[in-house]
């Protein structure tokens, strides 16, 4: 590997890292604004024009708050919890193909940090690690509400990961690859040979299952039982304050961003967009990035839209939905897909 390659990768990592953090930051602002619009309000509008500096003010507040570590907590695990949560949230974006390659001079820059051939599995591994941040934090707090929140998070994630994995298997049967780059490349354009190229139109049920599970995995409403203000005070982050709390909240928004990117890549064509054959070269690559981000922003908006529409599930309803409905449906989806591939 040349020095130039290393520098290119390093720059790409830093850029993606910065973008995910900025998007997570502004997701908090977007959440507040969108919540306000859904409730016929205005939302934050004091910090700067239309309140666009609100995330900076919130961040500054988080940093300046008193840092409290409960006396009877396990200090090491108490600090490890939010660190792990934000770490796992940030590394998920490494395998996402953000676009096709850019050509600058003699260098070809693929807009993907790494194209490992088990990209989907990597995402799954990282997402499953995310629950440890919540569990460790909830356990280390030495607070019954935190512990309840952590237990809920763990059992919820285990239940929904099965359905998520099964819904992905059907997708992998269609695409025949685990590499996210190839999955995105196979959905080139929008319309080909009389049918849509995007996987959503081959796997609509799979996508439905996947998005429901994505809501559960990111602990978003209506599956936000681990935090659940009304029952568990704050759930796993009850005892947290200052930037450690900020890390938990931040990791939730980064997870939303990453899962939006994953959904866009797996089911909605990633960086592909209709009429893309009119463009070529760097213009095509940049437009692809724009298209991918538009899809991601739509998914983030959809997450928020659902949050302000649906009430929270009761815990037994959550488990019923996961085990008795989603998993059988996912298995049925695999069988239907298998029959479809074999006989059509």
């Amino acid at each position, binding site marked *: 590997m040349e020095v130039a390659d290393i520098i290119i990768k390093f720059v790409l990592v830093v850029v993606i890292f910065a973008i995910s953090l900025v998007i997570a930051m502004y997701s908090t602002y977007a959440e507040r604004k*969108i919540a306000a619009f*859904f*409730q*016929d309000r205005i939302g934050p509008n004091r910090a700067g024009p239309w309140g666009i500096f609100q995330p900076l003010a919130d961040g500054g507040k988080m940093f300046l708050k008193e840092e409290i570590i409960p006396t009877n907590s396990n200090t090491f695990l108490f600090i490890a919890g939010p660190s792990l949560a934000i770490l796992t949230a940030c590394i998920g974006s490494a395998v996402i193909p953000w676009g096709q390659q850019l050509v600058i001079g003699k260098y070809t820059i693929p807009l993907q940090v790494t194209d490992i051939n088990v990209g989907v599995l990597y995402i799954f591994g990282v997402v499953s690690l995310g629950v440890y941040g919540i569990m460790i934090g909830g356990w280390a707090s030495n607070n019954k509400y935190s512990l309840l929140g952590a237990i809920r998070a763990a059992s919820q994630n285990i239940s929904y990961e099965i359905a998520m994995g099964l819904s992905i298997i059907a997708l992998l049967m269609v695409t025949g690859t685990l590499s996210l780059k190839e999955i995105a490349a196979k959905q080139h354009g929008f319309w080909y040979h009389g049918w849509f190229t995007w996987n959503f139109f081959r796997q609509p049920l799979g996508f439905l299952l996947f998005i429901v599970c994505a809501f559960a995995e990111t602990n978003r409403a209506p599956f936000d039982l681990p935090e659940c203000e009304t029952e568990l005070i704050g759930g796993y982050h009850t005892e947290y304050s200052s930037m450690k709390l900020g890390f938990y909240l931040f990791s939730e928004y980064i997870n939303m961003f990453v899962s939006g990117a994953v959904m866009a890549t797996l089911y909605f064509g990633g960086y592909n967009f209709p009429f893309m054959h009119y463009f070529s070269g760097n213009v095509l690559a940049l437009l692809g990035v724009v298209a991918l981000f538009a899809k991601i922003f739509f998914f983030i908006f959809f997450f928020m839209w659902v949050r302000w*529409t649906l009430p929270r599930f009761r815990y037994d309803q959550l488990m019923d939905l996961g085990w008795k409905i989603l998993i059988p449906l996912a298995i049925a989806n695999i069988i239907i897909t298998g029959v479809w591939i074999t006989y059509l």
Partner: protein
Amino acid sequence: MEPLSNKRKVIEDKPLNFLERAYLPAIVQGLATTMKHFFRKPVTIAYPEQKREYSENFRGMHSLKRDENGKERCTACGLCALSCPAEAITMTAAERQKGEENLYREEKYAAVYEINMLRCIFCGLCEEACPKEAIYLDGPHVPSDYLRKDFIYGKDKLVEAPLNQ
């Protein structure tokens, strides 16, 4: 029992059908409802810049009126204090001296006129009781303060500003 009104409604407890149990149609309906609100005009009044209009018959802070020549109308008859259900009004009467004809309309006037704004219930009975049309509850809200004693408003706060001649 015979129903007392025709509003009685028999509720059937029938089991959910397949579409209702599938959640999704209901979720789509809910999403449409929230989306309708998304494009609706916000009802917020951004307070310090915009202020909500007081209604026409709003009863706010009292003011003691002057007549067309700028003389105080109040004659300290005490009917307002008598009518006050919350006993918020006290006053001390005094006789008008020579040379004060341009200040007070009648021979008697209120040397001290105090309303305890923490007791006042803004019912408006004082303005109804007043025979001289001297007191009206036509002011804005009574502002907040830190000490109880600061809520006892004297003539300095109640009497209308003198006319400019």
